[in-house]
């Protein structure tokens, strides 16, 4: 071989040199970098025409106005609606992430029928016709068997038209078992009903803009209490008017951190502190005597049923709630209580508020009445800067259709929760009733805009109860825990895809209704739950069909809204401008015609809520709420989980807040893995040391520990409801629990 190595080498070098000096490598280098700038797997959002559509966000009871930016038919951004009376352009982190819920690939996209075992996650897609006929068929069967009353419905939608329609459907069908998801609103309503004589359908109105001293008994005013964005705006306004927020709670929440003063007290003693303050107000004659003397009853004495004069509120408080006595219950210095009462009395327009955290639980009525009594003492009722009952905006009445015999007898059956009416749903009583089968078994459960399997406390019992219900139907478009454990899913449109009225925002000063619009054409084969109900009624025929005579939900809504529909469609909201709120009325429809501190039926006192757990549980576990965690029907979208602090969620583990002193005494340090045990359950958590929590108290956030929805939230942290259980309030029968005893051991 004489075309030897040498010429081969030369050739090689020549080629290399030639290539190097040719444009080829340079061109390649350039092309390759252009390629890296346009990697095909990095998405390029399509351009298009940009438009804005106003609507309302119904992910929480806040009812904020939203403006949705669309590019062609894609939704690209949700912002707060600038001139909406509730949120004035502001928006919370959940509302901002709404498009992640809309476009989630894990939504229920079409009616589903369970294929495997319940909860196994095996489904077959079915048509809407089949879905309707299956559910209607089952419901018909129950009518035939005389079991119409054994059907129950749960809704989390609040007092809106869809809920009304749902209730109407159940009533016409013959079931008394219509349940709302109870919350602090129920306690406010009940307190107003008892003390102010408000009607049960009235909601609480708060003229917070005009208060100058807010005594907050654990209310997460900046943690999602009431209408969250509205509260944020109000708080900012308070800064300008130098209104003072006094936050009373054992944990340094965001509200406490922003408050004028944070007063940590023994959890559960809030009612006692209220009465202690009342004691000082009375002893030092700091209360509004004119108001109390002229417009209230039950202050000096109460005539009981048998005509005897009993101690009134005043004597009751003076006898039992001296600062010293209250000091022992709250752990607060007697002087601090006196000082606090004086400050409260000194304010021009003070107000006392109750409802822990976001007010997810109704809480103790005793406590609610005691705190509301402070408002009465200061005359903050129906007055500027005060508290009052807001009538539910009257909706047009729907045609009255006489029930048939089945319905008539069915609705006369006792409710499963033992409540005498559906004004207050004792949802916490439902699982025991289902488990015991008394007074009768529950044969079918329809769940709309709610996820009780996750949000109800004592998860284990709730799951067991679910297992006993032969038919569970979900209307959810999220694959939530309840949907996952149902037999049929008849998915509703998501809030951005459907038209409906948004109920009165919680704790707002005047009646407002907003209209949520179908900003987007439904992405999937979902159907408005209202339409589904109407179709079900048609499928059932007879008087049920007659009671729901509309061709679709839109017709029904139009009829309900009446002349409000026009302004609603025009501006997106309707404000009651016909009346003034607060109206300044000093009389009410109580038996005495006055505001009642006490009556023959009640007197605010302090009965500690019987928190579960014996001496083997040395710690107190309390829940807390944060704006970064959705803990209701909607679960956290990915963005909101992303902004969760690593002190709340670390990889898949939830963290429990504990005072460093308490932790030290137990030999625990930051991020230690511990077993958290309560009488209701146990879970593995990590330790997070936090100076801002009372020693002996530990706190977990609501909203984690999902087992459903999507991979961005499922399996992360601990569901607090698995560790807690309900405690029935002696007055309301609603859940009065504020925590549970607990213990920690190294895992």
């Amino acid at each position: 071989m004489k075309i030897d190595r040498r010429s081969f080498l030369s050739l090689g070098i020549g080629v290399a040199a030639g290539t190097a000096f040719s444009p080829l490598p340079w061109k390649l280098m350039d092309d390759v970098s252009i390629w890296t700038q346009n990697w095909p797997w990095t998405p390029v959002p399509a351009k298009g025409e940009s438009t804005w559509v106003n609507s309302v966000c119904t992910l929480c009871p806040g009812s904020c106005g939203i403006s949705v930016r669309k590019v062609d038919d894609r939704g690209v951004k949700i912002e707060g609606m600038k001139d909406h009376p509730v949120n004035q352009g502001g928006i919370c982190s959940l509302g901002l992430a709404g498009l992640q819920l809309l476009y989630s690939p894990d939504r229920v996209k079409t009616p589903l029928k369970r294929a495997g075992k319940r909860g196994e996650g095996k489904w077959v897609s079915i048509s809407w016709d089949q879905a309707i006929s299956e559910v209607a068929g089952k419901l018909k069967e129950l009518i035939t068997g005389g079991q119409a009353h054994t059907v129950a419905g749960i809704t989390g939608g609040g007092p809106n038209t869809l809920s009304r329609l749902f209730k109407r459907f159940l009533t016409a069908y013959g079931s008394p078992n219509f349940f709302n998801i109870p919350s602090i609103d129920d306690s406010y309503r009940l307190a107003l009903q008892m003390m102010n004589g408000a009607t049960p359908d009235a909601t609480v109105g708060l003229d917070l803009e005009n208060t100058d001293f807010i005594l907050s008994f654990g209310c997460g005013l900046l943690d999602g209490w009431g209408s969250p964005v509205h509260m944020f705006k109000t708080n900012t306004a308070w800064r300008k008017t130098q209104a003072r927020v006094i936050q009373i709670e054992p944990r340094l929440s965001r509200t406490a951190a922003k408050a004028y003063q944070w007063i940590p007290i023994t959890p559960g003693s809030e009612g006692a502190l209220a009465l202690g303050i009342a004691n000082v107000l009375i002893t030092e004659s700091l209360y509004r005597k004119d108001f109390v003397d002229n417009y209230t009853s039950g202050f000096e004495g109460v005539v009981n049923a048998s005509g005897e004069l009993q101690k009134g509120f005043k004597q009751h408080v003076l006898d039992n709630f001296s600062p010293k006595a209250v000091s022992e219950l709250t752990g607060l210095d007697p002087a601090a209580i006196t000082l606090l009462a004086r400050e409260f009395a000194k304010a021009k327009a003070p107000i006392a508020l109750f409802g822990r955290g976001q007010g997810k639980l109704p809480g103790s009525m005793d406590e609610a009445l005691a705190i509301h009594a402070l408002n009465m003492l200061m005359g903050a009722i129906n007055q500027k800067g005060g508290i009052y009952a807001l009538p539910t905006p009257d909706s047009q009445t729907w045609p009255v259709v006489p029930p048939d015999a089945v319905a008539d007898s069915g609705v006369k059956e006792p409710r499963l929760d033992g409540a005498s009416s559906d004004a207050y749903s004792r949802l916490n009583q439902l699982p025991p009733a289902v488990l015991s089968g008394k007074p009768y078994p529950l044969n079918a459960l329809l769940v709309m805009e709610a996820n009780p399997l996750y949000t109800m406390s004592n998860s284990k019992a709730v799951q067991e109860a679910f297992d006993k219900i032969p038919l569970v139907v979900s209307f959810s478009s999220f694959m939530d825990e309840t949907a996952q454990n149902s037999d049929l899913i008849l998915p509703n449109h998501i809030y951005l895809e459907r038209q409906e009225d948004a109920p009165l925002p919680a704790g707002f000063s005047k009646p407002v209704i907003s209209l949520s619009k179908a900003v987007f054409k439904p992405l999937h084969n979902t159907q408005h739950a209202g339409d589904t109900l109407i179709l079900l009624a048609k499928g059932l025929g007879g008087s049920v069909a007659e009671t729901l005579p509309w061709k679709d939900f839109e017709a029904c809504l139009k009829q309900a809204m009446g002349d409000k529909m026009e302004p609603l469609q025009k501006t997106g909201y309707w404000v009651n401008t016909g009346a003034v709120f607060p109206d300044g009325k000093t009389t009410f429809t109580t038996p005495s015609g006055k505001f009642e501190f006490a009556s023959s039926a009640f007197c605010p006192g302090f009965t500690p809520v019987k928190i579960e757990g014996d001496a083997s549980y040395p710690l107190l576990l309390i829940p807390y709420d944060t704006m970064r965690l959705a803990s209701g029907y909607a679960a956290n979208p990915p963005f909101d989980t992303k902004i969760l602090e690593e002190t709340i969620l670390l990889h898949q583990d939830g963290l429990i807040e504990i005072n460093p002193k308490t932790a030290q005494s137990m030999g625990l340090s930051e991020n230690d893995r511990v077993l958290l045990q309560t009488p209701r359950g146990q879970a593995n958590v990590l330790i997070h040391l936090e100076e801002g929590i009372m020693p002996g108290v530990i706190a977990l956030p609501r909203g984690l520990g999902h087992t459903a929805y999507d991979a961005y939230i499922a399996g992360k942290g601990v569901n607090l409801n698995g560790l807690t259980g309900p405690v029935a309030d002696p007055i309301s029968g609603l859940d009065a629990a504020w925590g549970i005893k607990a213990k920690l051991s190294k895992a």
Partner: protein
Amino acid sequence: MDSAFIPNGVRRCAPGKFLVVLAVAGAVLLWGVYAMLLCWFKGLNQTNMNNNYGFALWIWADLAVIALGGGAFFTGFLRYIIGKDELKNIVNYAVLIGFICYSSALLILAIDIGQPLRGWFIFWHANVHSMLTEVAFCLSCYFGVLTIEYIPLILENRGIDRVPFLHHLGHNMHDIMAVFAATGAFLSFFHQGSLGGVAGVLFGRPFSYREGFFIWPWTFFLFTWSAAAYGPCFTLLITKITEAVTGKKLVKDNVVELLAKISGWMMVTYIIAKIVDTLYWANVTAPSKGLTLMDFYSHNAFYGVWILILEIVIGGIIPAAILITDKGRKSPAARTTAFVLAVIGVCVNRWVMVLQVMAAPVMTFDKWALYYPSWQEVATTILPVAYGVILIAISYRYLPIFPQEPELNPID
């Protein structure tokens, strides 16, 4: 088998043994290459770097190997510019080590950047105000110089030398090597310095920020100085290791001692400057930003004053003291200890100027962020070591790296 390519007058091990060495080093190399490919194809999520640690093990490795490779430019500088003739007996090896160090640094940089395919933007869209631009330009140019310095060595291979063109090429390159070496020294002074400038100009990072002269922070000069001082120690250490591995004396003691002595005195001056710099920084610079020395050395689990002592005393004063004394320099054990300590010292310096800069919080509500490298980072950092072993093994076997070898190890 390959005897035609083995230099005259020296003895080399059997090809089999040689191949085993190559195979072992090659296996490590492949491991590193695998990690490198992971980083390239999957991205830098393969590392334990994070948004607090934009710079981490790799940048340290870069700074360290370039400092250690500084032996090449400084020996070249002494040999060609100052005219320390004896150093011709070690300059080849210094060049080889430098070549390995610099090519490794470039390779690591190519892995370290998030968009390696766009790496050339640093040249094309150069921002002349950036120290890193200066680094990139000088580093690449100086790597060119090292290649130019290494080529004649390759051309001296008996097989290659037979080709007339290549023979003459090597010859000609030798003739003007002083020009290349001077250019190299010029480039080196700058890029070693700008590597120091990289940390020194960070006025947002009080731990590394230094005042300076004109546009150059003091670290600019300290880095050049330390590379010149410590680089030769690394050359000498590797020489020592090579001698131990081959079982032969390869460089005469007088050569080693000369370089060690120069290195020692350089270290003395450097360490004085470094101490002055540290004192000024601790007493003037940092306090002007509201920070005290101990803010940088407490409240964390790793960075304590010990690291300052390790760098300045153990890795600076002690080796310098050994090398400037006749006794210390002449004792092989003490000398080698000094080399090792010096290498540790300069590596620790580069470590703190990269890693501790990232670790120390600046905002009062920020926390110390500690970091440990992922296996991919470790593997890609070991890769150059394996590559260096292979290149040294091949070069030693086939090239007349050590001019004194035949004389010191006569073949009977």
